[in-house]
């Protein structure tokens, strides 16, 4: 019991510490200072962009991992979840070597089109997608694998095409799990810091998402704005997780 209480104290006390320093009376004016609103809007844009990337590229991968057997599947499954445990700053450096102006793919793209991810909102989206996509893949793969397939089989025997089956039978069956995975993935993208500042850069309106501004505000003495923004992120994350509690945390 005492150890369990220790865990609660370790996690909840810092939150209380944060909340008791928030200047509630000036909250709105703090949120309109120092590019705070710009950062919040950019965070929304970047996190939704990352979610779109995760859905477009992550869902097909989740399907393949769940429904197809092929050599190296276990390895691939491990690799795609790596960003969940990798320090995000390492992810940022790795992204530089892959998609930077002198990176493996980045150089080719830059030489051909003049397009660059670094110092660009698309780079912030890429960084956020890198760290958040595994949350969607893991959830989606589990639901594709564990769903009751008798509906799919019945549809197949009735002559439904694979595309029609996927759209009308599979997708509705896994929709709640997909929504949960998407929400979790989005929330992780919203909080992304290390890979973004290392890979994308830090410029208001372009790559300076809310966590980056919080860090810089703390460093340069704008504590009130940093705390106000922290509160916003905290409430959004809390909202997502409370909304998901039945699905993600189980309902004992």
């Amino acid at each position, binding site marked *: 019991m005492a150890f369990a209480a220790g865990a609660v104290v370790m*996690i909840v006390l810092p939150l209380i510490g944060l909340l008791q320093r928030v200047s509630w009376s000036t909250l709105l004016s703090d949120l309109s200072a120092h590019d705070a609103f710009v950062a919040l809007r950019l965070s929304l844009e970047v996190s939704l962009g990352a979610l779109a990337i995760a859905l477009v590229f992550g869902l097909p991968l989740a399907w393949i991992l769940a429904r197809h057997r092929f050599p190296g599947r276990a390895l691939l499954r491990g690799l795609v979840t790596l960003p969940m445990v990798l320090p995000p700053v390492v992810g940022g450096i790795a992204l530089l070597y892959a998609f930077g102006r002198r990176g493996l793919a980045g150089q080719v793209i830059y030489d051909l089109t003049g397009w660059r991810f670094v110092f660009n909102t698309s780079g912030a989206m890429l960084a956020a997608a890198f760290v958040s996509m595994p949350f969607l893949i893991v959830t989606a793969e589990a639901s594709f694998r564990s769903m009751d397939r008798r509906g799919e089989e019945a549809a197949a025997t009735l002559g439904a095409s694979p595309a029609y089956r996927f759209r009308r039978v599979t997708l509705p069956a896994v929709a709640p799990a997909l929504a949960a995975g998407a929400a979790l993935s989005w929330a992780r993208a919203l909080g992304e810091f290390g890979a973004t500042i290392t890979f994308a850069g830090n410029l208001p309106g372009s790559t300076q998402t809310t966590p980056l501004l919080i860090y810089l505000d703390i460093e340069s003495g704008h504590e009130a704005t940093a705390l106000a923004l922290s509160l916003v992120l905290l409430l959004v994350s809390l909202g997502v997780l409370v909304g998901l509690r039945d699905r993600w945390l189980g309902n004992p």
Partner: protein
Amino acid sequence: MRSRPTTVLLAALAASSLALAGCGSSSPTASSTTSTTAGSSPSTAAPITGSLDVFAAASLTGAFNSAKTTLARANPGLNLTYNFAGSNTLVTQIQQGAPADVFASADTKNMDKLVAAGLVDTPVTFARNKLEIAVAPGNPKHITGLADLAKPGVTVVLEAPGVPAGDYARAVLASQHITVRPKSLETDVKSALVKVTSGEADATVVYVTDVAAAGSAVTGVAVPDSLQPTITYPIAVVKATKNHAAAQAFVDSAVSGAVQKALEAAGFLPPQ
């Protein structure tokens, strides 16, 4: 329904860890590095003894670390520990009661905060620095001066507002009516340099000592002396020190001793 409050609590706990993960757990520059040395050779002057915690600006890392070897040799009884971070971060730490004996700042603005709070003795200037443009090795974009930083096709990064190097650079550029649109505002001079060494940026403005420390990874383009801002490094004994003699000895060494020699070797200018 019996378990509902537990589930809500679990959700709250998970939410907190998720949100806080974004708020600095992985910040590359906030962490301060510390290291310790114990000397073993006989001393010549009056030896400094006891433990000494020196809080120093990140730009002093190279010079102070190289001075430590000399100090350790001359003072076998000295247990010297550095805490390197941005000057503004160190000020916050000392204000919150961190056990510093000496504070060495990269600008007078941050030192003045501790002077005003009555937390340090009267500071003395121990070094000066100059700004320099850092470009890719061989200067492929042919940058010859500050005006070239405004040219289209030149990707420039600067340091964020509040970072002394960035504030100095913006002031000099403004005085010359040069409008630079940086692609990123980096958290300190080191990360600004990395953007150049990695090839993402074509140029940045840092200190001459940073260009020297980077070696062949970057090429320096001088900023004329007539445009150089006054960049002075003050150092002071923290009043709460438990080892005032050692703290004062370190301050003296920074002004005109082994530490000063190491600073000059790293490219810092003497305190006039």
